[in-house]
Structure formats: structure tokens, C-alpha cells
């Protein structure tokens, strides 16, 4: 790629060379003409001179010769005039041979001289000859002048062309460069907005047009780009809204599914466990009662123990009876304890479920939260006299909602029991260390939910266990203290209230349970 300057210089060079060649040819013709003209005019004047000398040769008067010769310019034009008669005798001579070889001059026109030999006649009879040798100074002057004119003219034309080309090149390349700079800026800035017609005065008409076209084009491009961007943004916005809608729909679907499953679970597990419970309760009852009877028998045996020792039985027999009795005591205790445990598991399964669907009721939530929390606190105190917790209640007065009260109360009881358990556990772990147990109950009503946040500063839940706590029968409590059904039940109850259950916990620092109940319950239909 060449710049305009380079292209113009190339063109300029070609033009100058062409011009030089053409004028050289023309000059050659002209020089030829000049020489021919010189020869012709010289011949003409020589002929006239010869005729003038004819009478002199006839009469041989020296005066005539001299008078004629004196008129002639021997300084610049003539070199030698020689008249000879027929016998070759020189009659008169003016000038002298130049120091040049005569043979060369014989040829006629040379660089320095033009030589001509003419016959002289009198009454049409040849009477002698005349030799005229003329200097070519005039011709040389002419040729020299001609060449000088030619050279200067060529130089002048070349220079003019050069200047013109330079001017043109500057004008075109400068304005193109200017345009290029402007439009390259225009890509970044909103050039067309600042585009000023008066700025264009510098440009030529064509460049002005071009520049105008360019700025129009850029304006169009910018406009198109803007409208494209607008369309794009609009499209993105629409997609975003659609995606949001879809997400909401999916979330709703999942929520309803969860709710359905939770309700289904509550009812079907209720039906099932009610049936199973009664079937199992009977054999359990028999086992427990039989164990009780065996225990009674052992007590009786203990009473006769003293008599046995006094009898004649051997020491080893006595020992084996003692051992047997103690084994019996242990095993019957195990039977009793575990049948009671099985019974309590069945009871809590029955608690977790309900055989019939309960009815929505409008209740005072403030009252319910206060009542249940203090109930659980006192039940914990009943188990452990040293147990003490500062309960902070941040509940709006007269908070009322639609709910399934029995279910909700059961969920709250479980949450508070867990919190108090975590606090008791931490106190036990810390032993002597200073620890002030605290339970914060905060209730808030938002647009969609009644939220109650119950935070304890107990042992907390480790990360590994956080996913498992909703699994039925999962528990970290010893088998005598929990069945592992609580959290899954709370979750199911939250779901059946169109709500949610969130667990935030830091191991060793405490747990926050957020129970959400939909505020739209009772408003459907």
C-alpha cells in the first residue's frame, strides 16, 4: 500500500520523463530545421556573393574584390574567400585557412565551418571558381540558444508540475488524514453530535462531500447501533422477566409439591402408625407386664435368699444361684426399660402425625409463643433444678394468624425443647466455666410470612450434621432422650403451613431456627 504522496510522486516522475522524451524529439526536429535553415540561407548568400564576384574574375580588378569583401563580416561569419581561374591560379584571397585539416572541411558542414565551392560564369561560360569558408558561430549561437530555451522550459515545466503535484498531494493527503483522524475519533466519541459544518472549510468540495457522507454513514451506524442496543436490552429484559416468571413458577411448584408431600406424610404416617401402634402396643404391654411379674418373683427369691444360705447347698451352687438372680434382675430391667422405650417411640410417632386433617383456625400467635416457651422452660426446669435460661421475647402484641393450632404448637414445643437441650448440653460440657444461657424469641410479620426466629446460645450443630437433621429418626441425643422425629416433624408442619424452616447454626456458639408460616392461609378461597 502506498500513501497518496507516494502515488503522486510516481505519477509526477512518469509525467516528467514523458515530457522530457517528447520535448527531446521535438527539439531534435527543431535543431534539424535550424541547421538546414542555416545551410540553405548560407547557400543562398554564397550564390549571391559568387554572382557578385563574376565580373571581378572577368575583369580582374582588385578594387572591386576589396570593396565587396569589406562589406562582409570576417569577424563572425566569413573565414575565407578564395577566387581561382580555370587554370587554378588564385586570383584573389581574403582570410586564411584555419588550423584544421582541409579534408574535413571538404565535406561541407562541420562543427566549426561551412565550406562551399561554386563555379563562376560569364556569358554562361565557366570562368573560374570561388571557395567560401564560413564560420558556424551563428548556427552555434542559435543551436545553443535553442537548447538553452528547451532546457529552461523543461525545467520550468517540471518545477511547475512539481509544485502543483505537491500542492495537490498536500491538499488531498492532509484533508484525507484529517478526515481519517476525525473518523477514527468518531468511533470512540459520539463525533456526529459535535460535528460542525464550519470545521469543513479547510476541505475541498470533494473531501467535504466525502466527509459529509462519512459522517452521515457514521450517524446512521450509530443510530442503528443504538436502536440495536435498545432492542437487545429490551429483549434481555424480557428474557429476564420470563426467566424470573419461570423461576417463580418452578419455586411455587416445588413449594406445593413439598406441601402436598408434607401433608400426605402427616396423614399417611398418622394412619399407618396409629394402626401399627395399636398392634405393637398389645405385645409390648404383655412383655412389660411379664417382666414386672418376673421382677416380683425375683423379689420373692431375694427374700428366701437368707434361708438358702443357711441350707445345705454347696458354695458353688449358691454362687450360681446368686449369679442367676443378678442376671435375671438385669435382664428383666432391660426388658422393662426397653418396652417402655418402644412405647414412648410409638407415642411420639403418634404425636408427630394426626389421623385426621385438622381445621384452620385464627389464633393469637403472641399468646401461643409466650405460653409454649414458658411451658417448655418449666418442663426443662422440672427435669433439672439447676437449669436456668434468660428468655428474651421480642414479639409484637396481638399478633394473630391462621394456622393448624395443634400442629403449630407441637412444632414450637419441639423447637423450644431442642433449644433447651442444646443449652443444657453446653452447660454440661463447659462444667465450671462461666456461661449465661440465653434464648431469644423474635417474631416478625412480613408481607408473605409470619416469621418466628428462635435463637439459643447452646452447643450448635456441626456442618456435617446440618443436612441430616431433617431425616426422620436421625438424632444425636442418647436413645433414651430423643427419637429423631422432631426436626422432620417441624419441617413437615412448616410445609403444611405453606411456610419454611431455616436452620442457621455455628457449632459451639448456638443455633437459630426460623419458622415461617404463610400469612395467606385462610385467605385462599
Amino acid at each position: 500500500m502506498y500513501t497518496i504522496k507516494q502515488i503522486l510522486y510516481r505519477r509526477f516522475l512518469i509525467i516528467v520523463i514523458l515530457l522530457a522524451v517528447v520535448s527531446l524529439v521535438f527539439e531534435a526536429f527543431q535543431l534539424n530545421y535550424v541547421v538546414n535553415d542555416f545551410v540553405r540561407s548560407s547557400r543562398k548568400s554564397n550564390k549571391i556573393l559568387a554572382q557578385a564576384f563574376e565580373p571581378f574574375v572577368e575583369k580582374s580588378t582588385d578594387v572591386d574584390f576589396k570593396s565587396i569583401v569589406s562589406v562582409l563580416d570576417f569577424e563572425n561569419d566569413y573565414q575565407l574567400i578564395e577566387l581561382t581561374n580555370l587554370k587554378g591560379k588564385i586570383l584573389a584571397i581574403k582570410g586564411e585557412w584555419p588550423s584544421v585539416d582541409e579534408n574535413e572541411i571538404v565535406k561541407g558542414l562541420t562543427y566549426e565551418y561551412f565550406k562551399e565551392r561554386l563555379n563562376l560564369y560569364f556569358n554562361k561560360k565557366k570562368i573560374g571558381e570561388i571557395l567560401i569558408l564560413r564560420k558556424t558561430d551563428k548556427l552555434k549561437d542559435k543551436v545553443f540558444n535553442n537548447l538553452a530555451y528547451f532546457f529552461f522550459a523543461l525545467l520550468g515545466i517540471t518545477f511547475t508540475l512539481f509544485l502543483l503535484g505537491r500542492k495537490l498531494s498536500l491538499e488531498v493527503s492532509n484533508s484525507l488524514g484529517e478526515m481519517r483522524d476525525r473518523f477514527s475519533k468518531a468511533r470512540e466519541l459520539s463525533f456526529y453530535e459535535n460535528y460542525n459544518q464550519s470545521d469543513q472549510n479547510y476541505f475541498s468540495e470533494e473531501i467535504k462531500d466525502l466527509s459529509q457522507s462519512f459522517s452521515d454513514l457514521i450517524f446512521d451506524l450509530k443510530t442503528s447501533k443504538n436502536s440495536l442496543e435498545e432492542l437487545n436490552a429490551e429483549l434481555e429484559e424480557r428474557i429476564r422477566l420470563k426467566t424470573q416468571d419461570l423461576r417463580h413458577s418452578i419455586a411455587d411448584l416445588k413449594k406445593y409439591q413439598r406441601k402436598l408431600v408434607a401433608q400426605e406424610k402427616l396423614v399417611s404416617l398418622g394412619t399407618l402408625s396409629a394402626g401399627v401402634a395399636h398392634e405393637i402396643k398389645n405385645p409390648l404391654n404383655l412383655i412389660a407386664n411379664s417382666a414386672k411379674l418376673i421382677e416380683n418373683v425375683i423379689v420373692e427369691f431375694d427374700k428366701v435368699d437368707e434361708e438358702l444360705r443357711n441350707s445345705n447347698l454347696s458354695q458353688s451352687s449358691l454362687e450360681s444361684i446368686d449369679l442367676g438372680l443378678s442376671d435375671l434382675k438385669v435382664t428383666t430391667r432391660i426388658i422393662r426399660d426397653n418396652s417402655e422405650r418402644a412405647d414412648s417411640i410409638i407415642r411420639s410417632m403418634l404425636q408427630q402425625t394426626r389421623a385426621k386433617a385438622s381445621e384452620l383456625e385464627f389464633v393469637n400467635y403472641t399468646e401461643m409463643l409466650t405460653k409454649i416457651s414458658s411451658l417448655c422452660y418449666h418442663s426443662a426446669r422440672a427435669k433439672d433444678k439447676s437449669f436456668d435460661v434468660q428468655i428474651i421475647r421480642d414479639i409484637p402484641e396481638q399478633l394473630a394468624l391462621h394456622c393448624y393450632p395443634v400442629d403449630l404448637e407441637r412444632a414450637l414445643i419441639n423447637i423450644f425443647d431442642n433449644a433447651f437441650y442444646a443449652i443444657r448440653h453446653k452447660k454440661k460440657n463447659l462444667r465450671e466455666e462461666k456461661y449465661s444461657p440465653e434464648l431469644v424469641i423474635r417474631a416478625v410479620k412480613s408481607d408473605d410470612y409470619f416469621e418466628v426466629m428462635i435463637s439459643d446460645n447452646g452447643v450448635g450443630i456441626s456442618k456435617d450434621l446440618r443436612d441430616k437433621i431433617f431425616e426422620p429418626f436421625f438424632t444425636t441425643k442418647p436413645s433414651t432422650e430423643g427419637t429423631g422425629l422432631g426436626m422432620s416433624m417441624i419441617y413437615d408442619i412448616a410445609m403444611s403451613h405453606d411456610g419454611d424452616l431455616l436452620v442457621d447454626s455455628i457449632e459451639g456458639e448456638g443455633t437459630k431456627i426460623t419458622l415461617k408460616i404463610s400469612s395467606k392461609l385462610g385467605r385462599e378461597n
Partner: protein
Amino acid sequence: MKTLNIALVDDEKDFHEIFNIFLRPYISDDKVAVFNFLSAIDFLEYLETDSHQVRIIILLSDINMPDMDGISLCEIINEKYPHIETYIATAYGNDEYKSKAKEVGVKDFFTKPVNFKVIQELIEKKIEEYNI
């Protein structure tokens, strides 16, 4: 005189008691010794500190326990103490647990309530196997 050392890992104290009563004839003959642990961690700690004194031959573990479950325990035991034969006794007799147990190299899987007869047969077989 050789003894079949059995480690019992279960978080229910009653299970330990009943198991000891059941094995009393073998224990009084010094054929069997039972080592009781209420958690997997306790057992692992015991192995770390006292393994050179008593060579445990059989481990019978529950699955569902606080701190560490029985399958993880068996996995560790089979890696670190390959001479110990691992058995599982659990109330959760589902196939998932069974295949998991098999994966980690558990020898047999008993479903609770454990039939003492089966355990007895196992112990008799082991006593014979180890020439006790």
C-alpha cells in the same frame, strides 16, 4: 492359653449387658473376652493406646451411633488393623447399608434383634478356627 478377644461397639449399654450375660459361659471358661465400647471413637482410642497388650480378633459394631457410624469405623479398622474381623449388627437392615458394609470389607451383617444363636455359631466356629 488363647482367648477369642471380641470388641463390642454399641451406644446402648443394655446391649452390652445382655451380650455379656449371653457369653458368660465362654467368658468364665476364658475362651472369650469381651471388650465393651460405647462409641467408635472410644474403640479407636483404645486400639491406638493398648493394641499391643490385647489382640482383638473380632469387632461387632452397631451402625447408628453418635460421633461415628459403624460403617466408617469398620472402614478404618479394615485399613489400619486388617487382622481384626469386622461384623455389623444393626436395626437398619436395608440393602444400601449391606452393600456399603460389603464395600468396606465387613465379614457379615446381622440385623437386630440379633439372633443369639447365630452369634453363638459364629463364636464356636472362630474358637475352632483359632484353636482355642
